């Protein structure tokens, strides 16, 4: 049987780098059918092998599945030699190491181009690969504060609001496949390769949005209004029955206000003049929020959501892990899928790690003609034989020799 083509069938991508953004890019391209070879080493393990800490690596399939994972220590002469052979047979090279580190290893861009003239290079950093901060050290969870969104969130005077994740990384990770596929198309049509440099700082700063124009035009900085909205009331999260249970409600039109009142049983306060129009409700929203909160507090978040969505008023439970895991909606769409992972252990090489079962999210785009692959989750180094022997044509004795001296380890 001839295997059906996938969008990126025949494209080979070489990935060198840890953390969230870059591996996510590789994972998306792998799910679209590219052969993504992830180069890593047992000697310096990506911290992502250990996240979340309580699961010792259950998060890693989100970023590494569908790839071919090989162990090459590019800092050794033997490892660098093999790495360079892979460059020669790859269409794309992507890395998130700083330039001085890549140069130290002998992985400099002019050399890559010499080895493979039309290779596409995606080079990603935290704060920027060129420019005044190029040597600066950074931590992902803090870089989200650089892009401007933290100071648009939460309440005026309060500390900037943080999302408990490396949020800006994801923008970079999902943006980069667009640029890489664009460059592959362009190379296919013009024969010309491209080198592209991206940073988590820049992808985060784009999401600061229209306030950037408003500031230039009026000198006004964005307001911090918490969960409120400039145009809608009631609008916020309201506490419900149970521990840390909340339901978000957003009433955006007069029709929705009427439906909202009816759904909650037309209490007297619904008919007060102070709530009769959107303008009036916005003026009196603190008192309105208290009244709505009084209604939700004696109900479960699920009941509040069903009651309001039943009449077409936008509302949702603030989803917790339990809600997501048990969601009939996500189940109907096949969102979470089972995957093996390996219990990370600093004392032993990855091939000794114990296999365990976890879950990972499916690719959000559902493509009718070429469904994106969930993909097999390889352990670190699981694909050494395939890559070294089948792709590079190395002999068993060469592979053994370089494995023994820890070049391919």
């Amino acid at each position: 049987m001839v295997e059906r083509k996938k969008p990126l069938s025949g494209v080979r991508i070489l990935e060198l780098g840890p953390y969230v953004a870059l591996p996510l890019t590789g994972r998306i391209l792998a799910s679209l059918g590219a052969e993504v070879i992830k180069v890593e080493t047992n000697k310096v393990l990506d911290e992502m092998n250990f996240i979340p800490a309580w699961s010792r690596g259950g998060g890693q399939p989100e970023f590494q599945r569908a790839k071919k994972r090989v162990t090459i220590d590019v800092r050794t002469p033997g490892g660098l030699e093999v790495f360079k052979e892979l460059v020669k047979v790859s269409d794309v090279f992507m890395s998130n190491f700083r330039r001085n580190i890549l140069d130290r290893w002998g992985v400099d861009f002019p050399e890559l181009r010499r080895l493979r003239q039309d290779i596409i290079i995606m080079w990603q950093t935290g704060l920027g690969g060129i420019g005044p901060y190029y040597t600066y050290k950074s931590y992902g969870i803090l870089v989200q504060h650089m892009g401007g969104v933290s100071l648009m969130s939460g309440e005026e005077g309060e500390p900037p609001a943080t999302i408990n994740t490396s949020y800006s990384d994801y923008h970079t990770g999902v943006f980069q496949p667009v640029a890489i596929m664009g460059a592959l198309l362009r190379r296919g049509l013009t024969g010309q390769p491209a080198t592209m440099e991206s940073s988590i700082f820049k992808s985060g700063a784009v999401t600061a949005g229209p306030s950037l124009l408003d500031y230039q035009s009026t000198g006004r900085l964005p307001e911090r209004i918490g969960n409120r909205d400039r145009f809608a009331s009631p609008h916020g999260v309201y506490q419900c029955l149970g521990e840390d249970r909340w339901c978000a409600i957003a009433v955006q039109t007069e029709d929705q206000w009427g439906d909202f009142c009816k759904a909650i049983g037309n209490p007297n306060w619904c008919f007060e003049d102070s709530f009769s129009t959107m303008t009036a409700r916005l003026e009196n929203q603190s008192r309105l929020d208290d009244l709505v909160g009084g209604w939700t507090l004696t109900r479960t978040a699920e009941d509040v959501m069903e009651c309001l969505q039943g009449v077409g008023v936008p509302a949702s439970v603030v989803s917790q892990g339990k809600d997501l895991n048990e969601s009939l909606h996500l189940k109907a769409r096949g969102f979470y899928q089972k995957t093996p992972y390996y219990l990370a252990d600093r004392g032993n090489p990855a091939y000794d790690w114990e296999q365990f079962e976890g879950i990972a999210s499916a690719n959000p785009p559902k493509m009718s003609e070429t469904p994106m692959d969930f993909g097999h989750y390889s352990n670190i180094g699981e694909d050494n034989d395939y890559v070294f022997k089948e792709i590079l044509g190395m002999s068993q004795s060469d592979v053994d020799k370089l494995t023994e001296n820890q070049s391919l380890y």
Partner: protein
Amino acid sequence: MPFQAPAEGVLLPPYRVLDLTGPEGVFCGKLLADYGAEVIKVEPPTGDVTRQRPPFISDVPGIERSSYFLFYNTNKKSVTVDLETSEGQVVFKKLAASADVLIESFPVNYMQSLGLDYDSLRQVNPGLIMASITPFGQTGPWKDYKSTDLISLAASGFMQITGDPDGPPLRQGNEQSHFPGAQHAATAIMGALFYRDMQDGRGQYIDVSMQEAMITYYTDAHPALAYIQRGENVTRVGTNSTLVIPLGAYPSKDGWISAGIITPREWENLSNWMFEVTGNEEILNEDYKGGNQDRAPYNDIITALVIDFTTRFTSEELFHQGQERNLVFIPVNTVSDLLVDPQLDASNFWFDIDHADAGNLKYPLGVFDSEEVTPTTNPAPYLGQDNEVIFGELGLDEAELASLRTRGVI
């Protein structure tokens, strides 16, 4: 459309993309437009509703002056068609026959009610790629549920982990729910184009659920797995960690500065620096030495000392002087800081775009920097500015256009 190479210095071929999206998907078309696709915004004759959205340039209202519209529609063209009239549908089908991609974010089944669903459109254009970006996707029990930015932030669980542990779940600023779905749709569209044009494939339909896309934007926290493995729900930790001290945001002389001190070496550097500056020996206490979570028992006293230190500097001073000591202080920027940031400037992030009503403003188009390819720099379109040219190409003559215009179809 014939498959053409991109112009010199442009990333994407001039693919024709029909953009029917509202705020849920508007960023998808912008990404493709900024890098060279021919993205045509298809608006109702009264204009896209976001043209009415304040704030306006210089606070003067007008449909060509909304900062929201100007920001999210750079490099797009504009035509007007009333899709709810049968004549409008005929015109739109001709347009769809000429297109490579269609992006929409209408309620589920709305396009079908107009006879413009994918099955109908592929009859006139088998190569068409159509992507729908909707709050909960095209299938499943929640598909018809109503949503807004706040509701999507709640449904995905984003809000569950944003804010203070003692306070309510918090909404992030600038409608963050509108990015993940739009970005995922752009990757799938690029994949589908590559499949169609480089692998001899055909067109296809793409269903993107914003809820699912958003869940994949915080998978390092993995809330569903946490529940399965530990029976616990991941929750808010606030801006400042209670385990790693200091980690979070602290007031500075002129705003906020974020800091992360993880390794023992970093703590040594910071505590010595704090002593130099404040003269307070308490910070050198042996009990506080160590890495990562070793200072957790002394959170209150150390945090007070850190604030006494950070408030003596501006955020910029801490950022740069910290790096000299191998310490990570990251400024908490607001939009005015971004516009003068030397790093963004050096990496070609900003591009000037002149617009007859909005004037010359800097736009953040350089998500990546490249010597070979640069973003295009056309302003957001005037309402219906491309009607004559684009409808003309489809074979509608001036008399027909005039007639359609009189009857409010275009």
